């Protein structure tokens, strides 16, 4: 079946003219019709627009367009509901944006289009990317294809679920504290968070500006490399994007792990890791060793401060970033007698509880009298955390850790205890604070129920090429990425 192909597999068939882009798109739509009632990954799809794009690509292919210049030619790719596409809605899974339609295209959207992708669908997420389960979506949660009672992770949970359920050939998400890697781990797919500044944030609705990065969720590492290559690069519209050359990530894949040094941070291997997760992780480390990697213990002494630092920095930035959702220029307005009450009513009714919680926390840590104690201190601890990484990377090429301490949890299990929910991000958060790149890929399953387990590799800043190479070598030696959820 067409929808079972990887992105790379599909492009081979498109290039060979064995299938058309319309057929590929049609296959996705049929698969969505068949399974999305259970998975609930897609919030909406503009089918005519999607098929129209596919037809345009088919016409281009007929005229001789090739995948050499446009590696994604004809490939249906879905987008998390926070990418601005001109004329299309974007809601960030929130009520507050109402029937907003973007007046412009973001840079990632433009680059993916330039690479030939057929962009379709708005994928469910935690409201404004705040959450680890999609339970904070104002439009209902998405479900984990491996066990529909469980969450797919978050905030890019819909993306991971859609990829795991084979509803698209790849999906684009964002990662602020683990929002790509954690759902990838929970749904058994590959999720890459590039180095901060590698991919433009222009046209991506911001959660925490100094932490957010765009990245792909895919079925395997090679697909991830292809999508990253299409999205990465300097953007004059984003002052924080870095003008470093983009390597050919795909062509650099292959080979074993000889000469690679992997760091094992003792501080990550805390009590409280699920025994099955721990066992799968230990096996993965052993596998890497067999592939030629040298395993070395490293110390990351500030790891335990990551969550606290993150929840101050991220919420502070978010409190300002989300101020613009005020009911004046766009979005659902809830009127008031004066601007003050209009703001309070609009935001009180438009935002969900987790978003309110974080905006209020962020407002508080920046407020007069508390700034130094909370925000400034957190910024300093962030420096210490970054130094941990710099020191580790002096001796190793990448870090190897579990992505999350446990497999997917049941929906509703952590909703009443936000702090416990936050703590489950402990392994992914420091990568964002340090600004470097990380990837999660499948490394096994729990036994009963059968749920995916994720392995995280963290690379040097702008070391995506090496990171993907390591991940690919591991993936090629293991069967996990070929397993599919039974839907």
């Amino acid at each position, binding site marked *: 079946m067409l929808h079972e192909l990887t992105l790379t597999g599909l492009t081979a068939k498109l290039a060979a003219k064995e299938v058309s882009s319309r057929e590929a798109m049609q296959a996705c739509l049929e698969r969505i019709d068949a399974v999305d009632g259970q998975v609930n990954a897609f919030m909406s799809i503009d089918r005519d627009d999607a098929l129209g794009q596919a037809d345009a690509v088919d016409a281009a292919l007929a005229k001789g367009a090739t995948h050499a210049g446009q590696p994604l030619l004809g490939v249906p790719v879905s987008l998390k509901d926070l990418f601005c596409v001109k004329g299309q809605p974007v809601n960030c899974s929130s009520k507050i944006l109402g029937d907003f339609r973007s007046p*412009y295209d973001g840079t990632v959207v433009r680059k993916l289009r330039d690479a030939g992708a057929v962009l379709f669908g708005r994928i469910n997420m935690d409201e404004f990317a705040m959450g680890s389960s999609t339970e904070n979506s104002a439009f209902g949660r998405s479900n984990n294809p491996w066990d529909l009672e469980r969450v797919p992770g978050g905030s890019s949970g819909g993306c991971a679920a859609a990829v795991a359920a084979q509803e698209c050939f790849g999906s684009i998400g964002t990662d602020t504290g683990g929002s790509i890697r954690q759902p990838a781990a929970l749904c058994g797919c590959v999720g890459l968070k590039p180095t901060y500044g590698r991919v433009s944030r222009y046209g991506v609705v911001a959660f925490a500006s100094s932490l957010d990065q765009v990245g792909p969720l895919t079925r395997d590492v090679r697909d991830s490399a292809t999508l990253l290559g299409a999205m990465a690069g300097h953007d004059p519209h984003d002052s924080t994007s870095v003008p470093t050359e983009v390597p050919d990530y795909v062509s650099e894949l292959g080979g074993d792990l000889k000469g690679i040094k992997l760091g094992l941070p003792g501080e990550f291997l805390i009590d409280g890791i699920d025994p099955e997760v721990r066992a799968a992780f230990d096996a993965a480390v052993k596998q890497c060793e067999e592939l030629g990697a040298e395993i070395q213990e490293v110390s990351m002494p500030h790891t335990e401060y990551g969550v606290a630092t993150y929840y101050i920095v991220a919420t502070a930035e978010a409190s300002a970033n989300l101020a613009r959702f005020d009911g004046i220029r766009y979005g659902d307005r809830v009127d008031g007698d*004066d601007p003050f009450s209009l703001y309070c009513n609009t935001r009180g009714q438009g935002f969900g509880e987790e978003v309110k919680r974080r905006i209020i926390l962020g407002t508080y840590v920046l407020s007069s009298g508390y700034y130094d104690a909370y925000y400034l201190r957190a910024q300093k601890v962030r420096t210490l955390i970054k130094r941990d990484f710099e020191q580790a990377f002096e001796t190793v090429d990448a870090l190897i850790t579990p992505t999350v301490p446990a497999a997917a949890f049941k929906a509703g299990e952590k909703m009443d205890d936000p*702090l416990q929910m936050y703590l489950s991000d402990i392994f992914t958060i420091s990568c964002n604070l340090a600004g470097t790149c990380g990837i999660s890929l499948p490394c096994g399953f729990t036994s009963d129920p059968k749920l995916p387990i994720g392995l995280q590799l963290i690379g040097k800043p702008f070391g995506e090429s090496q990171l993907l190479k390591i991940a690919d070598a591991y993936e090629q030696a293991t069967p996990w990425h070929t397993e599919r959820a039974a839907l």
Partner: protein
Amino acid sequence: MANNDFDIHYVANLARIALSPEQEARLAAQLGDILGYVKKLEELDVTGVEPMAHAVPLANVLRTDEVQPSIPQEAALANAPKQANGLFVVPKIVE
């Protein structure tokens, strides 16, 4: 890092978020827990440590002073909840 004086009503007003009394009570308790947890940071000596505002060490990222096309007025106002005469209409502002 005292947070016993966390005034949820004051902070929610600063953030322009209307909360019901029940929401206020629940959020105050949850935020109290979270603020208690982030007190961990007090354990660290951060004397002389530079605060980190950006994840990459770039500087002087600027654009040339050139005019680029604006968007048409209809497009600017297309999403406005209320508009008239080319303006975004809001409740009367008393200055």
